[in-house]
């Protein structure tokens, strides 16, 4: 039967994929998507824990809902900024975001 470990494994895998994308991608949109993956991994974890560890309390689910809302707001702002950059310099390659030296 499918148990907690399976969900956690999916979560970890998703998180890993997101992290990998974050480190390897250059397109800002792709970076945002990677972050979304990571956040969704968190949600999977939370829901799984809520189901298997603390089924009597809604903490995990509430947590996940807030997460989703925050992720959406983050993405909305992120896209707006990306759009801005795209209009200014016709490209969203993250490595080209070098107007300032690191």
């Amino acid at each position, binding site marked *: 039967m499918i148990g907690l470990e399976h969900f*956690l494994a999916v979560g970890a895998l998703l998180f890993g994929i997101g992290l990998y994308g974050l480190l390897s991608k250059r397109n800002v949109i792709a970076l945002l998507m990677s*972050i979304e993956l990571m956040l969704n991994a968190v949600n999977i*974890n939370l829901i*799984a824990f809520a189901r298997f560890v603390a089924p009597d309390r809604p903490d995990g689910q509430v947590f996940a809902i807030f997460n989703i809302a*925050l992720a959406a707001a983050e993405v909305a702002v992120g896209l707006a*900024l990306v759009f801005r950059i795209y209009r200014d310099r016709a490209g969203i390659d993250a490595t080209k975001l070098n*107007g300032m030296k690191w």
Partner: protein
Amino acid sequence: MNFSLIVPELLTACLAMFLVVLDLLLPGKETRRSLGYLAVFGLLGILAVLLGQQEASGAFYVNLYTVDGYAVFLKALFLLAVALTLLFSFDLIERLPRYSGEFYALIVFSVLGMMLMASANDLITLIVGMGVMNISFYILVGYHFRDMRSSEAGAKYLILSAASTAVLLYGASLVYGYTGSVQFVKIFQAVDPSPAMLGGMAMLVIGLGFKIAAVPFHMWSPDIYEGAPLPVTALLAMCSKVAAFAVLLRLLIQALPALADGWVAIAALLAVLSMIAGNVIAMNQHNIKRLLAYSSIAQAGYLLCGLVAADQAGVKGILFYSLLYVFANVGAFAVITVVKLHSGSEDMAAFAGLSQKSPFLAVVMTVSLLSMAGIPPMAGFAGKLYLFLAVVERGYLWLALLGFVMSMISVYYYLLVAKVMYWGEPADGRRLEVGSSLKWAAALSLIATLLLGVYPGPLADAAAWAAASLF
């Protein structure tokens, strides 16, 4: 549920939305100066309400939210810092391309987020507060959208911060999973140093470390500080950092005293790295915002020393230092604002000859920088004394010595700025235009910096009172 406990937060939220509404109602052409004043005085009014009910303490909504001396102190700090910051940045905000009304509203929203973080007693409240603050800041950082650097900084900040938040959240989910609760207190009860739990805590701390901009999680801050509009940079340096500290302290000290040996060592390491890297790299900066960015990394290192102490004295030191750092920052950024408005540049060279154009501002800048360096009679000295004292009491003499040596190194680059101001020749003969509200903010910060340096007693008592509530 005792709603009177969250009255300041409710008022802040109302103020922010009221600002949005007013902004929509006002005719489009008008400058939003009135909104700015409304925001400032609104925040000060909330501060008054907050201080008026400081006796009220307790937990709100099944322990999700606690109001104690610690939270009240930090909230007062945030409100004050933001009010002062707004006060000196009216002129600059009105030069932003459009939408200055929203700017005020967003800043007030970010205050709301910080206040939530200060009171957060469980992971969900923490995430919500942090989210509100973060999202406001993403927009604020990228606010100057005609300026390429600003939108670039906004995007960078968003990506890095969101990534760090994701790491933090993953850690939070693990902690939740292994304790079955999101409340800090319960985490403490359920503590069982299983590897997954430790991993979760480590990820939480990494996420917060990013916000604090402690080395090695600091890489974002110079770029973001440089690109963001000035008042936002100021707020990032003071408030978002302190807010993250607020959570970190509550989490580690209140919820995880059992693991103190572990995290104290980590905090000490971060403190050392931050103090050294921040101060050393700052020496080579020419953009004043970058310089302050690195300096703020170093300040984070000093604050971390208080965490190393991990006792009441340490927390008191952190609180005290944070507040005086606010005043020093307000002074410095007020002057930078004037220079930026005057010359359009934030390079060190733009400060040349400031002493001839406005001795007052030059003095404010010098005093603020020296306060950051920790030279008496400026407040910074007393603050560092408290911090390092706490560390020494716990037997970390070497850390305190390192801190002091690094402070002395920092004198070098702070004085470089002073040197340019007093030594350099002004690039042009134009008169410096200084708004009256800015003068007020600068004068206030100057007086506060000097007063706290000479007579820190009452504030130290307040900080001690606040710190006591955490134990």
